């Protein structure tokens, strides 16, 4: 009986892999990316630029943030994040269901959310020093984050926006991105964890080896949570065959209206009726 259970459990664990494999094995030769991805993250040492800075620009990355559930995907215990929510935030989240996520309507995902699609770090330089870092996201939606690397501070006054105002610096081998000025419209995950315009985030990106990079993420939002919360996400470098592809979410988004009875559309911000 015990042996049967073990075999059952192993088979069940492998099934998603088998399903994936069955759906891709018949693909034509160009399916090299998917095949290379199955081999797992590339192995090797952390690559560096000629000046010794860690090189983040040698490929495209996947992961490094939440999708379904920030609490469990960010390494917290069940209920740990939810216990730190202010009552109004908890009440708002209880009214949300995943069909209402703004992301489903091709709206931006905010920070630190990711998608199944890759992103690339691109640094802009003058002849003297780095000036900007851009994080180019393929999906969903095709968008970029701009991080000022020239030592400037956050402006005293900011109009709120989906990706806020980001300033970046290196602390030894860790890229630190500090962002304020967010709007309150995006959800951290499909469960609907909310935030306010008081949100301040600190991302600490540390490349552990060639194939993996940690994002230690601090969520600091006194408007919605009782204290700052630190999450840990892991990003994976994709194989060299992979590149960003065009992803125009607005082109043919049929989400919801025809398929979900009583579809209400996206729900954004603090007010559930907004």
């Amino acid at each position, binding site marked *: *009986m015990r042996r*049967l259970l073990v075999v*059952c459990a192993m*088979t*069940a664990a492998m*099934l*998603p892999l088998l*399903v*994936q494999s*069955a*759906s*891709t094995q*018949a*693909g*034509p*030769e*160009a*399916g*090299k*990316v*998917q095949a290379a*991805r199955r081999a797992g993250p590339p192995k090797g040492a952390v690559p560096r630029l000629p000046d010794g800075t860690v090189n983040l620009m040698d490929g495209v990355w996947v992961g490094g943030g939440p999708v*379904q559930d920030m609490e469990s995907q960010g390494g917290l215990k069940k209920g740990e994040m939810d216990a730190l929510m202010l009552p109004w935030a908890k009440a708002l989240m209880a009214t949300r*269901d*995943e*069909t209402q*996520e703004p*992301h*489903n309507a*091709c709206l931006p995902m905010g920070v630190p959310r990711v*998608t*199944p*699609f890759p992103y690339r770090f691109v640094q802009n330089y003058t002849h003297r020093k780095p000036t900007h870092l851009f994080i180019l996201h*393929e*999906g*969903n939606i095709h968008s970029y984050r701009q991080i000022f690397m020239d030592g400037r501070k956050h402006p005293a006054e900011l109009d709120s926006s989906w990706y806020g105002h980001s300033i970046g610096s290196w602390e030894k081998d860790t890229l630190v991105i500090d962002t304020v000025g967010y709007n309150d419209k995006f959800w951290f995950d*499909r469960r609907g964890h909310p935030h306010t315009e008081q949100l301040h985030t600190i991302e600490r990106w540390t490349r552990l080896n060639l194939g993996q990079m940690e994002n230690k993420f601090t969520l600091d939002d006194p408007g919605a949570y009782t204290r700052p919360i630190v999450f840990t996400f892991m990003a994976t470098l994709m194989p060299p065959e*992979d590149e960003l*592809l*065009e*992803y*125009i*979410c607005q*082109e*043919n*988004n*049929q*989400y*919801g209206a*025809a*398929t*979900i*009875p009583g579809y209400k559309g996206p729900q954004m911000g603090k007010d559930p009726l907004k």
Partner: protein
Amino acid sequence: MRTKLAVFLAGLALVALAVPAMAHHAVGAEYDASKVVKLTGTVSKVEWTNPHARIYFDVTQDGKTTTWNVELAARSALVRQGWTANSVKIGETVTVEGSLARSGVAGVNARSVILADGKRVFGGGQD
């Protein structure tokens, strides 16, 4: 033993149903994985787009022809698997197995798309 086997198969089915949860949006809210249909018809349109590629095909049942809207994975995901806009052509006969739209419209999220020669194209509707 038979009971154990039944429990085992039920467990496998549950795992299989859990797989579409990996999609870039919540497929389960749109399509009912417990209502799976298998339909054969002629492809009338291919949309090689994001956030989902789609094929439309005409299915004749009891003398009545209906155009079904088939949601595939994202174009981005399909390209990485090696598929192209020409992997299925207009006029081809295909057999599609997929989960029915919850609203009752003629729409499915594809689990499989099989050409007349038995070749399986595209992944499922998830990406």
